[in-house]
């Protein structure tokens, strides 16, 4: 299998897990993991900004259509896709984006954890912020944001651990 087909398969598996497992499991009202963001996190480094925007749009649209949320996922995923380059630059001090073609890994990016956490936090912040859009029940919203972000981070690292060796295989 080529790298591209492996990457597409990875996206299909992640979306299927999100759609058929995570969206249907009710852990608690405080936990709503949004693990599909790993698709954007593991997008190859050399991807052009325009393609990143379209990846973000397609991912958001796919989740909106399947989750029945009109635009909420696009609102959250699009800025994550657009600001990936500044996040790599400021959070992970990684500037060699254009010359590198592979999937982001801890070997390629020195502060890989900062990059993953920044991407997940930005996505969760936008998603839960626009989901509630009120400062009433701020305690509940903050707890839901924290628990969901933690769950998303755990699942993101799980996906990275499972798929990164396959996606980076030469």
């Amino acid at each position, binding site marked *: 299998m080529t790298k591209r087909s492996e990457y597409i398969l990875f996206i299909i598996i992640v979306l299927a897990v999100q759609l058929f497992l995570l969206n249907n499991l009710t852990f608690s009202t405080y936990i709503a993991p949004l693990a599909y963001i790993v698709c954007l996190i593991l997008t190859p480094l050399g991807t052009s900004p325009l393609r990143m925007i379209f990846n973000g749009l397609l991912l958001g649209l796919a989740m909106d259509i399947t989750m029945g949320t*009109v635009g909420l996922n696009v609102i959250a995923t699009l800025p994550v896709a657009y600001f990936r380059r500044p996040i790599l630059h400021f959070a992970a001090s990684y500037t060699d984006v254009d010359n590198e073609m592979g999937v982001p890994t801890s070997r390629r990016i020195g502060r890989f954890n900062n990059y993953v956490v920044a991407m997940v936090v930005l996505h969760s912040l936008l998603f839960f912020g626009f989901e509630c859009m009120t400062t009433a029940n701020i305690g509940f919203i903050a707890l839901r944001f924290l628990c969901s972000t933690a769950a998303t981070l755990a699942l993101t690292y799980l996906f990275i651990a499972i798929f990164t060796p396959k996606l980076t295989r030469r």
Partner: protein
Amino acid sequence: MHKLIYFFKQIYIPAIFIIIEVVALFFYATSTPYSQSRLLSFNHYITGWSDNIFSQMSGYFNLRKDNIVLTERIAELENRLNAYKSQLPEDVEIGVDLQSHQYITGKVVSNSLNRTQNYIVIDKGLNDDVRIGMSVLSPEGYAVGYITNCSQNFSIALSILNTSFNVSSRLSKDRSMGLVSWGGGDPYTVKFTDVSKYAQIAIGDSVEAIDFSEYFPSGTVIGTVESMEMNDEQTMYNCTLRLSADITRIDNVILVDSRDIDEVRHLKTEPTPQYPTMDDTDGDN
């Protein structure tokens, strides 16, 4: 041309991002009544905040003019106070609690002028003891409007430049009464209608609020007579008043809480007392 192409190459990716994000926001905002109302309230919050910033900026540049107006007003009030004091015995003190009116100053955050239903937003609300029904006056003491709604930190006043605004008024000299209202259009003039044909009106006569006005303290000047004409039936005068307050350039206002007005309003809501009639008396016998 090359520069233009270069410019578009520089901005097309952020432009695409912003366009898609705005479209997504639009779809999300219109998807449910809840999201629509939340985004609208957020929009109002942002608009109020930005209006406040611009109002503060323009207020800064008008400080010199405001200072002159306020100094003149203070001098006038000092003169009046001294005149009243000279009429009182020396040992009599008038406490604040005995005053029939309470005054609060406020700053205009936004002021619409181009509609038929114009409103003024003021930066004082329930937290500052502003209440619905309070009079809104210009710094010179001229009529501007009255409060119709309050939030914790802001209040909305129905401007005199609102077609729903009607207030009973009288000529200062002649004391003949009429109705002041705004017909839309010119923001400097209002109508003063239904004035008795026997009234002695002259151009330049001032028109003020009546003693039992529900909206303004007694004697609050509204404007001066600019022109007048008899109605078609030759029974009443219809006048055009030039507003004393320049509402198009108002930055600061005085909010007046009248305790007498509150009492009158309270009385109006009381049920009409039932007095015994002759029939009742006969029945008792």
